């Protein structure tokens, strides 16, 4: 399938940032173009500290052309590939301005709620309360990611739900998709999206809430259908 071709075309070392998209369909770039590395810290490391792999990658980068950095990526501390992926998924009809403002309001809401809790808490608990909204976002996403997924396989006329391992990209995508659909569908009509999202993220951060429940349901289904695992041929 397309994913295998993409992986065969160019391997990405484990040291790159998490949200790296591989070109599956045709793209305007020649396949020899490599992905750009935007973070300043990776260029300030002295030569001795690099591992074998990184040295080879550096040599390769000196010879190959590099793609242009997309408009959502920048070297400033405020640009985060995960956050931009989430904003793109929240975006409707190309309205990036609205999606970005919703995202920033969500992060502000999380910060406010956490600060409230921080100021109300007694002295010994103050250190355990996490106030950084980025940390909360990443941890919540991590908690929502399923480990194993189900896929429909038709055998002998009947369609079975077979447990299947998921790639990193797929896990991240499912976690983000569940969060967004949960906020859009199952909440009261009049509440604003930032409020709903911040509530969901805080619950997911503490391993509670409907998204985590959905993940556990999926895991239980996979466990129940363990018998069909041998139907998978890839």
């Amino acid at each position, binding site marked *: 399938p397309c994913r295998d071709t993409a992986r065969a075309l160019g391997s990405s070392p484990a040291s790159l940032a998490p949200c790296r998209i591989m070109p599956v369909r045709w793209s305007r770039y020649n396949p020899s173009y490599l992905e750009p590395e935007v973070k300043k810290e990776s260029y300030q490391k002295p030569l001795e500290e690099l591992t074998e792999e990184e040295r080879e990658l550096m040599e390769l980068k000196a010879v190959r052309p590099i*793609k242009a950095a997309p*408009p959502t990526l920048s070297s400033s501390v405020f640009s985060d590939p995960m956050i931009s992926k989430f904003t793109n998924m929240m975006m409707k009809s190309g309205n990036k301005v609205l999606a970005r403002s919703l995202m920033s309001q969500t992060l502000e809401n999380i910060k406010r709620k956490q600060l409230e809790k921080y100021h109300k808490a007694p002295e010994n608990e103050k250190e355990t309360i996490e106030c950084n909204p980025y940390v909360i976002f990443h941890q919540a996403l991590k908690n929502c990611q399923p480990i194993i997924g189900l896929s429909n396989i038709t055998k002998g006329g009947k369609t079975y739900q077979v447990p299947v391992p998921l790639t990193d990209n797929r896990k991240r995508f499912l976690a983000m998709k569940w969060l967004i659909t949960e906020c859009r569908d199952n909440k009261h009509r009049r509440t604003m999206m930032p409020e709903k999202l911040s509530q969901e993220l805080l619950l997911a951060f503490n391993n509670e809430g409907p998204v985590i429940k959905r993940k556990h349901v999926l895991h239980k289904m996979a466990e129940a259908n363990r018998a069909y695992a041998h139907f998978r041929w890839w």
Partner: protein
Amino acid sequence: TLRLICTTTPVQRKNAGASGPEKYTDAFIKKQIEEFNLGKRHLANMMGEDPETFTQEDIDRAIAYLFPSGLFDEQARPLMKHPNEVFPEQRKIQWGEDGRPFHFLFYTGKQSYYSLMHETYEKLLNVQKHQDQLIAQDLPLQKEKRNLAGSRWLTKIELEEMLVEKVSDDDYSRFIQLLQKLVALPCADIEEKYIQKFSKEVPVQLQKVVIEPLQYDERGVAFSTGEGKRKTASATAVVYDNGTGKITVNGTDILHYFPVLQDREQLLFPFQFLGRIGKHDTVCTVSGGGRSAQAGAIRLATAKALRSFVTEKEVEFMRQAGLLTVDPRVKERKKPGQEGPRRKFTWKKR
């Protein structure tokens, strides 16, 4: 399997020689060459020039003078060129007069490809035998790593030209895998010459671009210009030294011109990457495109202008961060029979 998916590179030329069956015998081509040389001498005599020093350009000029043609298609006009250029390098007929083919692999259909694979595998076996000998004598195996970054394998089209025969994607990928296996063995230095036939040097990217020196204006302040394009927007930026970090676009401040945070972040990206945020003043002009395209064009222009202020190493870092590449992505065209570039019409059952 490795499939070449990208369809937009200019390297996809058709190899006319490899397609189609063999058409010309060796003797035929030789006769054509003799006739061409004779005709060249006659033409030189006709034009009153020296037959010995009659070059191809002179032939073209003479033909254009003697046979003026108003045809639009360049390839339909009268032509006199050396037969090697007119008849594409095709394989001469591969069998003798009794009908018996010359090559022992002729009936496989891809004789040059299979003979190449056999040769390469023979080299691989040689290397393995040498390795076994070294192990038997308890000598250390050479571990000099070949620098893979500076060279690339032949492309499929170049291989086709070399073999004068059509090579399919599958065959090509198998050949490359075999070569990689050969190179991966420790004692592959023995067959270095054979491997070099199939690898090409890739020059270091940075050497291709010329960085302009700084210019100085009337007040003595150093400045440099850069141009950038993105989708339909084109921008020119002038970056001045000893500044306060102000950026002016088409006469207005960026805060008024770009109300969206993302665009302003893009404008500041080159400065933030180099750590020179408060040090330069920029004056830009931009036209065309939308808001994000204009921001991308200005970003490219400022990055190009900043190259003159910065060391070569930092220019290389900028290139690796993707700041100096022109973004080739444009709006995809709409296709007939579809509603948009990818979206098909609603499928109706009847």
